[in-house]
C-alpha cells in the first residue's frame, strides 16, 4: 500500500480568530504554487488542515518542498482508508510496516471526528493495536514512549493513517504580515534576516547597493543568487539594485574617514526608506547585529537609525555569529554568502571607524554633502529591478544542460 495523501497541519494559525480564513486561504495558495511542479498532486481544503492527494508523485520530494513553507506546523504522510474497520486495520498495518524493521514499540492514537462512525476511539485503539501486534514480531505497545505513534483520524471523507510526521517551517503564511524592504548586502547576516522576517508572514522586497567598479559583477551576482535561494521561502521576490558609486565616492571625498561608514549607512537607509515608500513597504529589515563589528555598536545603531521613522526589523540583532551561520546553512544561503567578493560595506573601510559615532557630529559632517536630497532621488530613480521566482531559475545556459 502506497502513501496516497499528505496531511498539512497549521501552527499558530489555529489561534488567530477572525483572520483565520484569510490566513488559511493564503497558505493554501502558497502550497498550491509550491507543489505546482508535481502536476498530478491535488491540493484540497479540509477543516483545520490542508490535504494533498499525492497521485503517484514523489512524496519525499513533496515533503521537502513543503518544509519550506511558512505557516505549516507539521507534515504527515498518510494512507487513506474507507471508513470501515477492516480497511482501517489493514491500512494501519501497512503504514506501520513502512517505517522499516526498526520500531520495537508503538502506540495507536485514534481520533474520531466523524461521530457517525460506529467504533469509538478507545475501541479503535484496541482493534488497530491488536491487528498490528498479531501481524508483526518483536513489537510491543508502549503508550508513554513509543518509537512510533500510529495516528488514526476518522474524518467525514475517510480515515487517514499516518506514522511519519515531519516538522514544518513554522511561522505564519507569507502575505499576512504586510511588506518590508530588506537591505541585502551579500554577507551571511542579511539573507538570514530576510528569511526570519518572512517567517513572520511578511512579504519581502530587497535592496542591494552596487558600486562598480569598486564592487564587481560577482558581488551583484551573489546578491541575485541569494534572492533566488530566498524564493524557496518567499515565492516571487523583487530585488532593487541601487547604483551607489557616486554617493560612495562623494562620502570618501567629503566626510572624515572615521565617520564615512556611519554616513554611508545613513545614506543607504535614506535611500531604502524612499524605496520602501514607493513600494508600499511599511518597514525596513536588515541583518544588523549588536557588537559584532565596530560599526554595529549600539552607538552606531543609534546614530544611523536617526534618519528614518520606519520601523526597522532586525531579526538577528541578538544572535551569536554561530547561530546566524547555523540558520544560513540550513536555509542554503551560507555557501553563496561566503563567496569572497567585496560589497559596498567592505570597500572604503576606514582604518579606524568610529565605534561611538554621535548624531550631532554625523549631522554636522553631512552638511558637506550639499545636494544630498538630489543624490538620493537620483539613486532611487535609477534603480534596476530584478524579479525572482522559485520555479523560474535563471535560464542563461539552459541549452547546455
Amino acid at each position: 500500500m502506497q502513501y496516497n495523501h499528505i496531511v498539512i497541519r497549521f501552527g499558530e494559525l489555529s489561534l488567530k480568530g477572525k483572520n483565520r480564513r484569510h490566513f488559511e486561504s493564503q497558505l493554501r495558495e502558497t502550497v498550491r504554487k509550491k507543489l505546482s511542479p508535481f502536476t498530478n498532486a491535488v491540493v484540497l481544503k479540509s477543516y483545520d488542515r490542508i490535504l494533498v492527494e499525492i497521485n503517484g508523485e514523489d512524496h519525499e520530494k513533496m515533503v521537502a518542498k513543503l518544509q519550506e513553507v511558512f505557516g505549516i506546523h507539521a507534515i504527515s504522510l498518510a494512507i487513506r482508508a474507507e471508513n470501515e474497520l477492516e480497511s482501517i486495520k489493514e491500512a494501519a498495518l501497512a503504514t506501520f510496516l513502512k517505517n522499516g524493521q526498526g520500531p520495537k514499540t508503538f502506540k495507536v492514537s485514534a481520533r474520531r471526528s466523524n461521530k457517525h462512525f460506529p467504533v469509538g476511539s478507545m475501541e479503535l485503539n484496541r482493534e488497530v493495536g491488536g491487528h498490528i501486534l498479531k501481524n508483526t514480531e518483536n513489537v510491543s505497545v508502549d503508550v508513554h514512549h513509543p518509537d512510533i505513534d500510529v495516528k488514526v483520524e476518522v474524518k467525514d471523507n475517510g480515515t487517514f493513517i499516518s506514522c511519519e510526521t515531519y516538522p514544518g517551517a513554522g511561522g505564519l503564511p507569507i502575505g499576512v504580515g504586510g511588506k518590508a524592504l530588506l537591505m541585502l548586502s551579500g554577507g551571511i547576516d542579511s539573507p538570514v534576516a530576510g528569511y526570519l522576517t518572512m517567517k513572520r508572514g511578511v512579504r519581502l522586497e530587497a535592496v542591494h547597493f552596487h558600486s562598480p567598479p569598486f564592487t564587481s559583477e560577482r558581488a551583484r551576482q551573489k546578491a541575485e543568487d541569494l534572492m533566488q535561494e530566498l524564493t524557496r521561502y518567499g515565492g516571487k521576490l523583487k530585488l532593487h539594485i541601487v547604483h551607489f558609486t557616486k554617493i560612495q565616492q562623494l562620502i570618501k571625498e567629503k566626510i572624515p574617514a572615521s565617520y564615512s561608514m556611519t554616513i554611508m549607512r545613513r545614506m543607504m537607509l535614506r535611500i531604502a526608506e524612499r524605496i520602501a515608500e514607493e513600494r508600499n513597504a511599511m518597514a525596513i529589515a536588515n541583518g544588523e547585529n549588536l557588537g559584532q563589528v565596530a560599526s554595529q555598536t549600539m552607538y552606531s545603531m543609534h546614530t544611523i537609525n536617526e534618519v528614518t521613522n520606519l520601523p526597522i526589523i532586525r531579526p538577528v540583532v541578538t544572535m551569536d555569529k554561530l547561530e546566524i551561520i547555523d540558520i544560513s546553512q540550513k536555509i542554503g544561503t551560507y555557501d553563496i554568502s561566503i563567496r569572497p567578493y567585496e560589497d559596498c560595506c567592505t570597500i572604503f573601510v576606514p582604518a579606524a571607524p568610529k565605534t561611538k559615532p554621535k548624531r550631532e557630529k554625523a549631522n554636522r559632517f553631512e552638511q558637506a554633502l550639499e545636494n544630498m536630497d538630489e543624490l538620493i532621488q537620483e539613486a532611487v530613480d535609477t534603480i534596476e529591478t530584478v524579479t525572482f521566482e522559485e520555479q523560474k531559475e535563471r535560464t542563461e545556459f539552459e541549452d547546455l544542460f
Partner: protein
Amino acid sequence: MIYFDNSATTKPYKEVLDAFVTVSQTYFANPSSIHSKGGETERLMLQARKTVAGLLSVKPNEIIFTSGGTEGNNTAIKGIALKHQERGKHLITSEVEHASSYETFHYLESLGFEVTYLPVNGKGEISLEQLENSIREDTILVSLIHVNNEVGTIQPVVDAGKILKKFPKVFFHVDHVQGIGKVPLNLKEAAIDLCTMSGHKFHGLKGTGILYKREGVSLSPLLTGGEQEINVRAGTENVAGIVSIAKALRMSFDKMDAGVETMNRVKEQILEGLSDIQGISINTPADGSPHIINFSVDGVKPEVLIHTLDQKNIYVSTRSACSSKQAGPSRILMAMGLGQKRANTAIRISLSYENTLEEAEIVLKELKNAVVQLQTVMG
C-alpha cells in the same frame, strides 16, 4: 557493430559532445579569473553543480568534480585515511572492489594502515554481520562497491549504511561507478558520506567524474595548490567536462526507467540463450545489476573467444578493462569461490540503454557457433 562492452566505457551522447564543444569554444575563460568572462564561466560551473546536485537530491556544495572513477575512489579513500589517521588506522573494504579501490587499500597498507578485506559468498555479496563484527574502535572507513564491475553483484549498501549509522565515527564510501543510471541509490537513505561516479560509464566523456562528499566530511586533498572544488581538488576546472557530465547525467536519468526495462529484457534473453549453450556457466547472480552478464566457457580461452566475436563486429570483454591485461584468473570470481577454471575463462557482456533484443539474438547465435567451433578445436 554490436557493442556489448558498456561497463568498460560507453559511447558519449551526441548532445553531451555538443555541449562540450560549445563550452570549450565559448566559455573558455578560467572561472577563477576576476574579469567578467571568468564570472560567466563561474556561473556556468555553478549551474552545472546545481544541476548535478538536484539530480542526486543533494546540496551543490556536496559535489566535487573529478577526472573519473579512479580519482574519485583514490580521493575518497586516501583522503579519509590521511585526514583521520590520528583517530585510527583501520579500514574495511571487500575482496571484490574495483582495482582503483583495491590497490589503493594495498598502498595504504604499505603506509601502516590495517585493512580488513571482507570475503563474499557465491553471489559475490558480503555478509552484513561480518561487516558489523569487523568494526573496531580504531576503524575510520568502510568502502564498498555498489555494483560489481565484473559480475554485476549488487552489494547491500543501504543496509550497510544503516548498520554504520550506529558507528558515527566511521566514514562510508561507496563506489557507484557501475551502479549509476542502472541501480538506483538514495545517498541519504544509505547514509553515505562519499560516493564515486564516472562520466564515461553513462555516455559522458572520459576524464569527467563526480565525487559526492557529504557536507561536513573533511578530506585530505590528493591534489594541492588551489582552492578549487571546495579545497579538495586543486587545478583549473575542466568546465567543458563539468557541463558535459551534468548533461550526461540528466539525459541518463531521463532515459533510466525505460532504459533499465530494456536492459532487463535483453539480459533475460541473453541468460536464456546462454543456458542452451553447452559448457557455459553463469557467474552473474540472478538478482544482479540489469546491465552485466558474466559467464565462463568451459575449455575456451576467453581472449580467443573475444577475437572470434570481434571478426563478426561484436565487442565483449573478459573482465574489468582495468585488469584485462593481467594474466591469470579473475580476482572477483576467485573471491566468489567459483574456482580457478571458471575464473580463468570468464566473459563479460555489459549493456547500455541502447542495446536491443535483435542484437542479443545475433550475439547468441554467433556465440553459440564460436563456442562449438572453439571447443572442438581446443578441446
